[in-house]
């Protein structure tokens, strides 16, 4: 097989069933028979209602969780243990609070045995790229939420992973900062094309960033229910592209597919 046809990341027929710790018979199947293929260099967004299993899918892809059924392949190889080709931007706080911003960025290089001088030079460069030059000496609690996200971004990208998994990285940011970061992300990505899986529940964000948008159904038993190729031209400006007719057309089409699922998900959480 031509190596260019091999997906960078292939989640095939994944099922994830959580067993409650105290009562083994109460099971919850978060994801059922989900398949997701990501080509090398492709930017895929995954949208879905809250609690549907998006983070669960990423945890599977990075190897933190093992699927109850199905296989994960990375560049054609079945995944065993942690995914060494992936970088993961967590939905929640993941910086080490006892390290400064700079030391948080260098930590991955440190683990790989890169010398201190070299990793500091590279980390300074990355801090500058995410707009945090001169903030390296600060501890996470001294940074704003948006700054912490950017440190986390630099921390992940400095290792130059082949696959980048991002779990709602910008959802805590205000709309202006968010659009700025989205543009920065697109710029970084176009300079060095990696496979990206970008989780969000914001459809506009998904469309403006991606090559492809995958819509997940509401849980339980989540699986993709629609895939939409985004044929908007690149390079894009995320703020401007939202105003183009093609964007609105795509948005309407995908939203129609999503709406029922969102209502279903909402109704379910309300009943609980």
């Amino acid at each position: 097989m031509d190596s260019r046809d091999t997906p960078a990341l292939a989640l095939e027929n994944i099922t994830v069933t959580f067993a409650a710790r105290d009562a083994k018979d109460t099971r919850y199947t978060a994801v059922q028979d989900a398949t997701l293929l990501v080509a090398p260099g492709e930017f895929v967004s995954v949208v879905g209602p809250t609690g549907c299993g998006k983070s669960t899918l990423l945890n599977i892809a990075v190897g933190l969780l093992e699927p109850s059924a199905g296989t994960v392949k990375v560049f054609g190889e079945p995944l065993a243990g942690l995914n060494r080709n992936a970088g993961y931007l967590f939905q929640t706080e993941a910086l080490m609070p006892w390290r400064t911003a700079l030391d948080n960025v260098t930590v991955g290089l440190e683990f790989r045995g890169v010398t201190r001088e070299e990793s500091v030079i590279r980390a300074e460069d990355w801090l500058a790229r995410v707009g945090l030059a001169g903030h390296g000496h600060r501890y996470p609690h001294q940074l704003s939420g948006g700054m912490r996200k950017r440190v986390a971004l630099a921390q992940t990208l400095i290792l130059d992973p082949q696959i980048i998994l991002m779990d709602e990285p910008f959802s805590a940011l205000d709309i202006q900062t968010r659009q700025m970061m989205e543009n920065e992300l697109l710029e970084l990505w176009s300079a060095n094309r990696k496979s990206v899986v970008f989780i969000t529940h914001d459809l506009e964000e998904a469309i403006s960033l991606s090559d492809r948008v995958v819509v997940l159904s509401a849980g339980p038993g989540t699986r993709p229910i629609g895939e939409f190729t985004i044929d908007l031209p690149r390079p894009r400006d995320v703020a401007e592209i939202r105003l183009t007719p093609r964007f609105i057309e795509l948005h309407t089409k995908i939203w129609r597919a999503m709406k029922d699922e969102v209502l279903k998900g909402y109704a379910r959480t309300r009943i609980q």
Partner: protein
Amino acid sequence: MREQESSKGLWSKIRPQQGNLRLWQVGMLAAFFAIWHVLTVPGLMPPVYFDDANKAAFFFGEPLKVLGRVWDWFYLGAIYEHLWVTLWETFLAFVIGTVSGLVIGLWLALNPVASALCDPYIKALNSMPRVILAPIFSVWFGLDIASKVALGVTLVFFIVFFNVYQGVREVSPTVLANARILGASQRQLLRHVYVPSAMSWVFASLHNSVGLAFVGAVVGEYLGSSRGVGYLILQAEGTFDINTVFAGILVLTAFALVLDYIVGLAEKRLMVWQPRQGETERI
């Protein structure tokens, strides 16, 4: 009317507030000594409670004599040898207790089987009144400093141990997972995630553990020794020299405060990464 107002104005100026807090604290101490003095100096108070004029002084000491004794100790230098021994014991107990608590705490916290196995014994050792071990330690380690250090170590060890144990279990699973994905080996996880997280709990308990190391040293001396401030107190008690007993207590208290202050300084330096309340600067 006007007078009342002006006296009110005066009070609002001198009442305890941010600026003059230290002054008030010193004043309270002075008042305490003054009352102590008035109540105990022979012949000053009418014999309401004690029939003999000297009895109050016998039971409660006399502050002037107590302070005189403290002065003599430091001026003539008799105390330094004893103080040095007590502080050295405190230091050794603190270091040994902390290091062993850290190592064993980490080891047990990262070994679920071992910790499940040892759990009831650790609980038992911790709830045992460990001061009672002092006589046994005297038999095992002799009357020199080793037995006092051993007592201090048993006190410090458990504080540090439980804090480390807690610290390891409280490591954020996300931070841990993130470090693993960033490529940390098992050893690197220990060094860069578990230990720093545990250390924050250990530092949080520094005040307690230094205090207890001090307690271990003094109680050990008190129960049998030939040197140390606890020994001075014991000796004075043997001759009913209540003033010297109080002088010893005074010296111990002062040094406990000094140790606490040093710990505070160390804490400030080591815990820079922890958020503190209200870190803004007034301009």
